[in-house]
């Protein structure tokens, strides 16, 4: 229990667990607690993480679980995020199920190890509490941290609310540990917006999770009886082929992500889409695209505009890696305009990564789909994205839907500068 918190009045709302099993069932908890609880239910053998805002509560809760004897995981204390992920690389190679959580600068410090974990095909699961990148230093939400790691070889799943985060965490182990995939997975939640908000969450029951998620059975693991060297030096004769194998595994994960979502639905009754989810996209002329908690705002906007007769729908990207271009193309094929709201900016291109990748996919599709794509950079460093802002974006989209011609991407809601 955190200092200064009276017994039975735990900050996370779930009451103070002193020993024994964690409580399950529906209760109002902080998003971070929900994340920690979900990770605990997956029975990680090894947890290693370094606290950093806004991820801190997750590691505090997990270390509390370990200290209380509520879970059997080994918690490795480290001096940095680089070491946290390195400790998990070793643990995972030895056949342990592993968990970490980080954000922003911490994720950036892991950069080198991210590539190692993926290249060594280690199915580590890590919660990313999305936060902006310095400078200027800022602790609030956008997606720059994980989007910047899009080439590292990690599967990236984005979640809309705390419940989806919980459920996706369990799915992440199933996907990553599949022998055809064997890749690490980031499960992303928006900093503060999800991590520090109290929501009603169905905390998962240990027995049901055990039934859903088999024990980790690694393809290969370090074994003193049969010594092997993991992460070996590979010369130009082989390197490129190993990189191709990672791409193949990414490709294989597409079906596994969809399957895991359906399997979870059968077991727990909740479903959030596979690689993508759609909302009122059938026959919609304007299709909004987003990732993370912003999708919740957009659902309200779509409801509101539909009532007013605007033909608008919503495409949520759950999996950013692998990028679900085939699924996206199917949805936007008959639309008149695609409107992408990016909480990241690939500096020097003038637009966010989702915008760029959808455009690239459209051009590359080999199909005759020709739909204008409008890119909007929104909500950087925690700037609010109110309903009014989205409505103004949709007004612009109506014009493009008629003309069929979109302009350059733009920054939305700058306050002190003019575009």
């Amino acid at each position, binding site marked *: 229990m955190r200092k200064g918190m009276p017994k039975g009045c735990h900050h996370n709302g779930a009451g103070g667990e002193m020993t024994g099993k964690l409580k399950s069932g529906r209760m109002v908890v902080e998003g971070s607690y929900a994340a920690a609880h979900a990770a605990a239910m997956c029975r990680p053998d090894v947890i290693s993480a370094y606290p950093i805002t806004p991820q801190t509560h997750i590691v505090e809760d997990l270390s509390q679980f370990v200290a209380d004897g509520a879970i059997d995981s080994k918690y490795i204390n480290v001096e940095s995020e680089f070491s946290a992920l390195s400790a998990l690389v070793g643990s995972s190679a030895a056949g342990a199920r592993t968990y970490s959580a980080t954000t922003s600068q911490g994720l950036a410090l892991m950069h080198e190890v991210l590539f190692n974990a993926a*290249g060594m095909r280690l199915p580590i699961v890590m919660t990313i509490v999305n936060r902006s990148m310095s400078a200027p230093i800022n602790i609030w939400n956008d997606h720059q941290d994980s989007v910047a790691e899009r080439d590292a070889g990690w599967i990236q799943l984005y979640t809309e609310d705390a419940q989806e985060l919980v459920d996706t965490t369990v799915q992440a182990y199933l996907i990553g540990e599949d022998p055809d995939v064997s890749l690490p997975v980031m499960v992303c939640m928006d900093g503060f917006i999800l991590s520090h908000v109290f929501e009603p969450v169905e905390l998962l029951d240990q027995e049901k999770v055990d039934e859903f998620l088999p024990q980790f059975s690694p393809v290969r693991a370090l074994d003193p009886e049969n010594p092997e060297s993991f992460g070996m030096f590979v010369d130009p004769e082989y390197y490129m082929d190993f990189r191709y194998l990672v791409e193949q595994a990414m490709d294989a994960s597409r079906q596994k992500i969809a399957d895991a979502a359906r399997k979870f639905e059968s077991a727990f009754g909740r479903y959030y889409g596979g690689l993508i989810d759609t909302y009122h996209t059938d026959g919609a002329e304007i299709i909004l695209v987003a990732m993370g908690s912003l999708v919740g705002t957009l659902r309200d906007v779509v409801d509101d505009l539909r009532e007013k007769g605007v033909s608008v729908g919503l495409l949520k990207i759950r999996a950013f890696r692998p990028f679900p271009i085939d699924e996206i193309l199917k949805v936007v094929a008959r639309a008149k305009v695609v409107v992408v709201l990016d909480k990241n900016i690939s500096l020097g291109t003038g637009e966010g990564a989702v915008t760029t990748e959808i455009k690239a996919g459209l051009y590359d599709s080999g199909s005759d789909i020709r739909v204008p794509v409008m890119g909007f950079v929104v909500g950087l460093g925690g700037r609010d994205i109110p309903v009014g802002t989205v409505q103004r974006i949709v007004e612009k989209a109506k014009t493009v839907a008629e003309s069929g011609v979109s302009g350059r991407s733009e920054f939305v809601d700058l306050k002190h500068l003019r575009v």
Partner: protein
Amino acid sequence: MTLPYAPIGKPGSSVANKTGGWRIFIPVFNAELCNGCGTCETFCPEGIVHKIEGGDTFIADYDYCKGCGICARECPKDAITMELEEK
């Protein structure tokens, strides 16, 4: 050939990689000038300079000698010379 799903190998497998192919200059050992002090063996960063079998002078294992030239530089008798190796 097929690859394992990840870069995993058996320990000791670096012996199979004959790095002598990286060499441009080859150390030529002159047994007549050699006084058998073993300085070349001590300084070799690859650990592949050794005493000739049944003799007192030294030679490199050319399967693994990368031709760095440290032995030639350190030899107190100038008994090792680096020569361009034609392949």
